[in-house]
């Protein structure tokens, strides 16, 4: 009653296995996805000429069915409808998962890492340079390139970590600024440094990565994809089984108590940002060494920002991030098919992604729409990151 925030009496606890407590979260996430798809259907309907251009009500209704059904069917076939589609999904998901894990890990340490984009870019610069400018034996070349990607990302993550630890500068601001710096650095290298690109081009592009530095493929999946799964397991292990993860989580949840318990909180921030950057760099390795095979100014697209949404959708858990990354990868892959086959703009998948995250962040909206009762889990997660 005095300074406690807990309610007067603890609610009677339920005896159930630990995973049961995740069920409401999973349910809310699935419902959010469903509601987002429903909104997407409305958008498809009002933008499709088969519906708005129909000359009768019946025709419009028929058009409605074929527009929505066709578009979503294309989304499904384009992402998991064939082996090639599935490979495409995995290829697009893998870098998202890695960069998302970086955001997740930083988040658990109480840091809002907006800098995955910049960390990816630096990882790509390092990986790319090793890939096309260094001459190393087969096997070793790839390993060195992947490690270089991780180091590049980690260095870029270390800067905001160091600034936070030493000066208290807020990581949200420093990481956003370093995204700009990273992007500009890449442009500079591609346009002005001969080792990277050919000067004076309109679309700056680096030399292609040597074959010895690219990921080999098994059943047309490049093995970098497997690294994303390994990374998920390693991040889970780090958070749940090691003293470092224990301290990071403690520092994230209550830095004062962590300091009182003898932890070096600034150093933990530093480590968390370095590992987060390294994971984003690993994601860049997958893009550069497995997918695009050369550097362009837009090679990363909005990968670093999608990584944030993936981490949020995955509720800042490693496995959740993996699943969310797969979903986003599927949307990206299926979106291409949707546009090609049905003429539905690929931007729709971006809208659906945004809506999913919006509804996950505002569970009250989903409950209101579906007239559900009860308290939503995990509603405060997004706000908390700003507290650091």
């Amino acid at each position, binding site marked *: *009653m005095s*300074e406690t925030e807990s309610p*007067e009496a603890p*609610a009677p606890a339920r005896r159930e296995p630990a995973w049961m407590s995740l069920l409401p979260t999973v349910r809310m996430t699935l419902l959010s996805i469903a509601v987002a798809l429903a909104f997407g259907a409305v958008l498809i309907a009002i933008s499709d000429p088969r519906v708005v251009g129909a000359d009768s009500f019946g025709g419009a209704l028929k058009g409605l069915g074929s527009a929505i059904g066709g578009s979503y069917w294309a989304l499904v076939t384009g992402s998991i409808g064939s082996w090639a589609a599935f490979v495409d999904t995995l290829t697009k998901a893998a870098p998202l998962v890695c960069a998302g894990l970086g955001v997740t890990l930083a988040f658990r340490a109480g840091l809002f890492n907006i800098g995955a984009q910049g960390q990816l870019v630096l990882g790509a610069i390092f990986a790319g340079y090793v890939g096309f400018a260094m001459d190393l034996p087969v096997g070793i070349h790839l390993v060195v390139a992947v490690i270089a990607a991780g180091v590049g990302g980690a260095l870029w993550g270390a800067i905001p970590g160091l600034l936070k630890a030493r000066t208290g500068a807020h990581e949200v601001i420093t990481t956003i600024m370093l995204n700009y710096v990273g992007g500009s650095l890449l442009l500079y290298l591609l346009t002005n440094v001969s080792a990277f690109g050919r000067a004076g081009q309109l679309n700056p592009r680096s030399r292609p990565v040597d074959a010895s530095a690219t990921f080999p493929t098994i059943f047309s999946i490049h093995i970098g994809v497997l690294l994303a799964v390994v990374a998920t397991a390693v991040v889970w292990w780090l958070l749940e089984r*090691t003293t470092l993860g*224990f301290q990071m989580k*403690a520092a994230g949840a209550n830095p004062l*108590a962590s300091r*009182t318990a*003898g932890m070096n909180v600034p150093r933990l921030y530093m480590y968390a940002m370095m590992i987060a950057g390294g994971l984003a760099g690993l994601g860049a390795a997958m893009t550069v060494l497995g997918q695009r095979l050369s550097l362009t100014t837009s090679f990363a697209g909005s990968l670093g920002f999608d990584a944030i949404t993936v981490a949020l959708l995955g509720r800042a858990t490693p496995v959740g991030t993996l699943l969310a990354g797969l979903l986003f990868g599927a949307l990206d892959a299926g979106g291409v098919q949707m546009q090609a086959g049905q003429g539905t703009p690929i931007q729709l998948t971006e809208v659906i992604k945004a809506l999913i995250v919006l509804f996950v962040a505002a569970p009250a909206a989903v409950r209101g729409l579906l007239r559900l009762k009860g308290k939503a889990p995990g509603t405060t997660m997004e706000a908390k990151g700003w507290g650091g």
Partner: protein
Amino acid sequence: MQLEIRGLTKRFGSFTANDSIDLTIEPGEIHCLLGENGAGKSTLMNMLYGLLEPTEGGIFIDGKPAHFLTPADAIKAGIGMVHQHFMLVPVFTVAENVMLGREQLKSFGRLDRKAAAERVRELSSTYKLKVEPESLVESLPVGVQQRVEIIKALANDAEVLILDEPTAVLTPQETDELMEIMRSLKARGTSIIFITHKLREVKAIGDKITVIRRGKVVGTAPPSTSEAELAEMMVGRAVNLTVEKDPHPPGADVLSVKGVTVIDSRGATVVNDVSFTARAGEVLAIAGVQGNGQTELIKTLMGLIKPTAGTVELDGEDISQHGPRRSLEAGIGYIPEDRAHDGYVGSFGVDENLVLDQFRNPEFSSRGILRLDAIARNARKTVEEFDIRTETIKSSLSSLSGGNQQKVVVARELSRPLRVLIASQPTRGVDVGSIEFIHKRIIEERDRGTAVVIVSTELDEVFALADRIAVMCDGRIVDTVSPDIQREEIGLLMAGGGTHE
């Protein structure tokens, strides 16, 4: 007015916080509501004040049913509440705070500050509540801020005043003054519902005492009832109110504090040239009113603040520059004052919190990898030993009651060999049953030869535990006395009134 509660019940899901409570508050009565933390006092008052809707039962004013959907309804009906955490705007004056929400306007929508100040003056003289209407609230001591809250309620024509643990934040002198104010309110016909778990106060001021336990009224008692009987009603079993403590000869100096001065970031000297020694097998209590430098002094001992001047020596070695990890590893146990901020991680389980500062111990980790089985084993053992009431060892600390949260912190610190135990407000917000237990464990720690330093603002606690008392006021240790000293005398020292010779 007469306020009656009949069969009031509040359920949260399957949990019954208040079970069919009956209570009648007569006009001009000081009705004490006594109960442990989590007994349901706050739930009851929140229903009375329109913050919670009752599941069953009703509230009657002078026999007529009343329904409060919001606090505004309750205020209109004549119910006022002084929350434990004040609801004042610090940068406003007293008069501005009192008029907030029902401002009187002059022409062109200008605020009529004069009328508000006049109203404050009037209430303050009627009820003997000494307050200057023009003072800024943030410049006022806590006791006076509380008076502003009372005036605010009275300005709303409150006839029933709910005081939620009002003495928790007051000095002994301020508590006496509050009691005077309560008597003068009573004399003018205002009824008071006085919520507390301090037995001494209940006996001193109450007309009628209602004891609540686990959401039910377990009985009413006249103020003549003995403290032991009241405690038994409250806890449900006989409670030993005095700490059993044999005299124990103090050993060698363990912790020597020499000339410690702390200047805070605003340039204020918060700890001023403090020196003392803590000896093995002795409890040294640092008594003082909240905010007189104890917090900073204790943090300095733990290495959480580096002193501006002076040294803290543990067995002759200066530890003041090392930081908390070295202090913990050197065998200092620390129970922080503000447990929610410094003592535990709310989202962590009981098991994790029990090793929060011990996870490096080879018992709980090796080569950076946690030994989850050992951590779980430790949690099961400690939960059992310290009677921590938790559903599972994985339950998050924030789901536990305040008393049990404190037990987790105490258990963690006392479960390892210590050279020094530093405990700041070890029983704040903890119920009588747990206080008894925590005190017993602290004395056991002393008898084991640990040097114990207790910081407390509760005189009862200081007298119960201390072998020596250092009184702190204004950043200085004004005197060190033996616990045979009179209560009044130490109260005077705490207020800075002269030095004991």
